[in-house]
């Protein structure tokens, strides 16, 4: 038997599994060396470091050395977000918008700012979802091999959250929702917010995105604002966003419409803000060009968004006054849990 010995600690090949580098023939892997002809696998010398407890097929651990798992770095599910919120105060920001409205782009560009240095006086202080942020940001990077930046479409994996800890004079932990646009489309079409976005009622703040793609022409602009109005209406129904919740209405992709429809969009945004406030929200509006197309267009709006996210609470959602204090309580309960 010709036996390959792998030098990479943790490679499943060491315990008879597949090559970590995915070589069909482990002999082709640069990390392996042929230890010669052996009469049985038992004769393969087993250095200490190979005693790595990878989960076996049935999920159990080998007894040689326990594998200690740490956080995946992926986006957080409900229970993980609950745990984090119980551990430290977190500001939960619901980011609402239809498919391709710019939710993921907003998250990617937010992270991207801190990859380059401190931003608006705030510095990056950590993240429980570093890997998830990096993956969201990756299609904007040169290594993606693309000619223009792109954004991964958010798959509908239920309630998911990204965590970002920022520091200035104090620290603020942001929990940012990463919900599929399909969910908000359903809310627009009349589905209950408690079914589609049950976390809405515990949002400390809310960002509603209006897709800038539709704002360029008059024919699509009116309909885009109608849909935004219906989304806000649905989100503020019973079980949804609480009255008094600070809300930022963002007309996205401003680089596409700013030069040709600025006045029209501003007027519509004003009406949408008034409507939101009638629905009990504490709303204001802004525009955003988080990832402008072209070489010379200046990014706009991100400083305003970041300042709004981190600024001190000036209002308290009315119905949250009676909520119990943080510390061990459940953040929210998914009805499916």
């Amino acid at each position, binding site marked *: 038997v010709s036996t390959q010995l792998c030098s990479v600690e943790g490679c499943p090949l060491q315990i008879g599994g597949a090559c970590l580098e995915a070589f069909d023939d482990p002999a082709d892997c640069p990390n392996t060396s042929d230890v010669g002809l052996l009469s049985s696998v038992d004769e393969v010398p087993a250095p200490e*470091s190979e005693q790595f407890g990878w989960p076996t097929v049935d999920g159990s651990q080998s007894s040689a050395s326990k*594998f200690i*798992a740490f956080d995946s770095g992926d986006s957080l599910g409900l229970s993980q977000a609950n745990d984090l919120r119980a551990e430290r105060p977190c500001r939960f920001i619901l980011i609402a918008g239809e498919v391709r409205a710019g939710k993921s782009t907003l998250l990617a560009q937010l992270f991207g700012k801190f*990859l380059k240095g*401190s931003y608006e006086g705030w510095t990056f202080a950590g993240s429980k979802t*570093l890997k998830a942020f990096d993956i969201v940001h990756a299609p904007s*990077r*040169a290594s993606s091999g693309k*000619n223009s930046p792109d954004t991964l479409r958010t798959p509908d994996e239920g309630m998911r959250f990204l965590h970002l800890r920022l520091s200035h004079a104090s620290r603020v932990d942001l929990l940012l929702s990463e919900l599929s646009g399909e969910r908000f489309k359903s809310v627009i079409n009349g589905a209950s917010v408690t079914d589609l976005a049950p976390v809405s009622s515990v949002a400390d703040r809310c960002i509603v995105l209006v897709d800038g793609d539709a704002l360029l022409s008059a024919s699509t602009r009116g309909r885009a604002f109608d849909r935004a109005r219906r989304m806000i209406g649905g989100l503020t129904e019973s079980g949804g966003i609480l009255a008094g919740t600070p809300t930022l209405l963002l007309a996205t992709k401003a680089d596409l419409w700013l030069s040709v429809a600025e006045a029209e969009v501003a007027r519509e945004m004003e009406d949408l803000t008034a409507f939101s406030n009638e629905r009990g929200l504490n709303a204001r509006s802004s525009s955003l060009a988080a990832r402008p197309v072209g070489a*010379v267009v200046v990014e706009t709006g991100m400083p305003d968004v970041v300042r709004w996210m981190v600024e001190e609470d000036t209002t308290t959602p009315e119905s949250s006054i009676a909520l119990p204090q943080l510390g061990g309580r459940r953040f929210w309960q998914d009805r499916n849990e």
Partner: protein
Amino acid sequence: MNRAGILFAGLPASGKSTYIGLLFMAIDAGKGSLRLTGFQGDFEYVNELADRLSKCAEAIRTDINLVDGFNAELVTTNGEAFALRLPDYSGETWKTALEARGWSEAVEDEVRTSTGVCLFINVGAVINDGTILEAHRLMSSLGEQADDFTANSSDEEEAVGGTPVVTTQVALVDLIQELTRRRIVNYCRLSLVLSAFDLAGDIAPEKWLELNLPLLDQFLRSNREEIATRVFGVSAQGGRFDRVESKEELRNRPTVERAFVKDGAGRLVAIDAPVLWAADVDLPDA
């Protein structure tokens, strides 16, 4: 006798082994603040590291079998005796841990109980990944078409969740978060060792960090109460071994004379300064 355990961490080829060779050469030559009074471990391996350094040869890759590391009994110049434990994990150990999202129980034990960490970064091997828009702007400033940016690029492919290039700063923040979060005490001393610092030119290590790894720089500045960090620039080799003319010049100078260590502000300090900071050894001149 005080006991200190220092974890040497870093991605592959980050300069850990080279520094270990230099450290023991400096101790042997009486340079710095430490005197060796006892040693337990593979001294042959340490000698091999030192030999290669003195011959201007590239350091040997840390054998992953050397996880037992070294135990050294040391005395400082002001008479304080302490025992230093240096588990020497390979760079692959840390890289694999980030990929597999976990490590062995043995690593976990060292992480939980270590006094401090020396985290190594090779300044010549930093992976930074600029954005597509930055590349476009750069090309525009050069008068080139953005469409020429990538010969093999495509916008027709749907964006899918592949495996992105993980930049050095993201990987290191990830690693430090795990190293510090799992500790028994909520406080850690960290020496951030920028190796091959002769490649950085005339810049202070702290400034280099701010300019080249801004996310890591922010993270460390934001968490200084929990992670007491000092930045060092180390050139264990004193220059480039891969250049013939440089190599010959280096060969003619004693290793511990040609090597240098700079503190964050760029002042020359003793070769053992990163270890002393991580070990929390109180020296009047440290």
